[in-house]
């Protein structure tokens, strides 16, 4: 399957995903601030276009592995917002009945197979999902997301090596937002570009502007195609920024002001919106309409979540192992 080339529709579809991710994030933060919910929340504001663009090359049968900062990945992959909201609100109707929470949302119907809270741990599991696809002769691709900090943990290394030796259909996506919690990239990472590590595993390493949907789209097209064709894994490093700190409440004192301001100036969301209009791909009204639509989708999700019941206490000791094991 050859990946489609960029068209006006591509841009609009990506924008729609970005808009949903953004609205969803804003609403969640507002909900936290209102006190209606309380939990650690790792906003991906600023990273929207990475999964939005990548997921254009995927369908629900493809596998997604993501992390605690992963709701953007899930939404782009097609996990219904209402299942995410209900999960985060701890309701029985949540993706995982409220048992997993934001760090563990799982929704195989959309290919969202594993969300982990342990840095780097998703990569080996992604190898296994991809290995299964290979064993079953499926054309499925596994996309595995992680941060720049995760590129310094052992599981990263073992996974890239394993995926390469076994030629697994997996695309490793490092969303390099320049910080690991409060630690700046260079203080923890001994290489200028994470993508340069790919050579150590004989696999392609691609460095892209993670603020450019076009660049991410193109890089992902090639990587996904390569994986589907059985040619093995790719490492994509998408350089980006997270505007809301490590988690909500983080005031970002460790981020130099100039860096922050430059990041705001490069915010991919307004930039892409403007570009769509400037290039005539869409009118402002069209984009307003899309944003309005996503707003209603989020409204409905919130409504669904808060009108749902929590699960009964009979669920407490269920799902530890199979019922009649």
């Amino acid at each position, binding site marked *: 399957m050859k990946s489609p080339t960029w068209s006006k529709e591509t841009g609009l579809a990506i924008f729609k995903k970005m808009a949903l991710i953004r609205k969803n994030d804003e609403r969640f933060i507002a909900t936290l601030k209102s006190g209606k919910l309380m939990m650690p929340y790792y906003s991906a504001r600023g990273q929207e276009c990475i999964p939005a663009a990548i997921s254009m090359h995927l369908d629900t049968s493809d*596998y997604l*592995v993501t992390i605690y900062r992963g709701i953007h990945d899930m939404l782009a992959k097609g996990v219904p917002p209402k299942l995410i909201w209900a999960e985060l609100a701890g309701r029985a109707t*949540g*993706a*995982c*009945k*409220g*048992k*997993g929470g934001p760090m*563990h949302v*799982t*929704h*195989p119907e959309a290919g969202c*197979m*594993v969300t*982990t809270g*342990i840095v780097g*741990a998703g*990569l*080996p*599991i*992604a*190898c*296994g*999902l*991809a*290995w*299964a*696809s290979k*064993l*079953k002769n499926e054309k499925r691709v596994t996309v595995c997301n992680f941060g720049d900090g995760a590129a310094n943990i*052992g*599981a990263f290394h*073992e*996974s890239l*090596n*394993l995926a390469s*030796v*076994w030629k697994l259909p997996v695309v490793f996506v490092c969303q390099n937002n320049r910080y690991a919690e409060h630690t700046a990239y260079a203080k923890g990472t001994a290489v200028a570009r994470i993508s340069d590590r790919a050579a150590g595993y004989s696999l392609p390493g691609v460095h892209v502007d993670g603020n450019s949907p076009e660049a991410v789209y193109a890089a992902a097209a090639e990587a996904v195609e390569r994986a589907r064709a059985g040619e093995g894994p790719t490492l994509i490093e998408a350089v980006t920024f997270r505007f809301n700190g490590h988690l909500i409440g983080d005031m970002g004192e460790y981020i130099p002001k100039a860096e922050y301001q430059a990041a705001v100036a490069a915010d991919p969301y307004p930039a892409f919106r403007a570009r769509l209009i400037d290039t005539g791909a869409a009118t402002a009204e069209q984009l307003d309409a899309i944003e309005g639509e996503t707003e209603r989708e989020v409204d409905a999700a919130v409504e669904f979540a808060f009108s749902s019941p929590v699960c009964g206490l009979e669920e407490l000791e*269920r*799902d*530890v*192992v*199979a019922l009649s*094991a």
Partner: protein
Amino acid sequence: MSESTNIAMAINMALEDAMASDPRVVVLGEDVADPEGGGILKVTMGLSSKFGEDRVRSTPISEMGFIGAAVGAAIAGMRPVAEIMLMNFTAVCMDQITNHAAKIRYMSGGKTHVPLVIRMMTGSGFQNGGQHSDFLEAWFCHTAGLKVVMPSTTVDAYGLMRAAIADEDPVIFVEHMGSYWAPGPMPQRGEAIPLGKAKIVQEGKDVTLIGYSRSMIDLHGVMGKLAKENVSAELIDLRTVSPLDMETVLTSVKKTGRAVIVHEACRSFGVGAELSARIHESLHADLKAPVQRVASKDIPVPFAKHLETAYLYSQSDILNAVRRTMA
């Protein structure tokens, strides 16, 4: 049963039969395929020749990587049997076992699950020293979501392995190096033995002796002496140490009023502690003596032969423990 085999072969047969009957079963680990010798102790020998190297894969030395891969493959519908060469090496991949394999069913609200068997061998007595000899089952028993299976006979090794592979959830399967090649009866091929069920190996009325894995050898070893001392011992092989088959244990101890637990792992905070606590909780009034634990010293496993021998409990430690309960 005229035919005889050993535990290594019984596990090999179980893997072969499971692979033959279920295409989802795959085997992975360091050196498990035939070009690499079919396993460092040849427990997986012949499997890759029969089923191909796609289904029987030798891995890099990347326990986090390949145990994680086994978790992922299990989630995607395979039935991986992964080998961690020695139990001490679980320490390099605990995260995949305890934070992931064990918890994924629960954290996903049952959306996904991890039907994975992790085999590993261990045991002192080979002068392998401090990092290659430990019994660490208590770590896994303390982790909700895992089952821990530790057979001591050829028939159990086969049957429990079949059940472990058929199980819908992760199973830690511990093999005792010292008894791999001890001869035993040929298992009934195709027959699974349910997990979580202890076996009464011999009935008795004075004291209940409880063991698993290697300690069963030593418990068998003292039965004759006890008989000579006119002690009628009931011998239980737990086979599965988590979940514990408390029904079998408590029924027996209620009858005998005495219990001695024996394991090779260090004494403190081991499986024996949980068993002892549970027996006391349930049968306080019935006990004629406090439950006794016989286990290894709370020290790293020493290298020198005489120290390594002294690290492990001895058969006379077991006899003395029984005598203490009878006093």
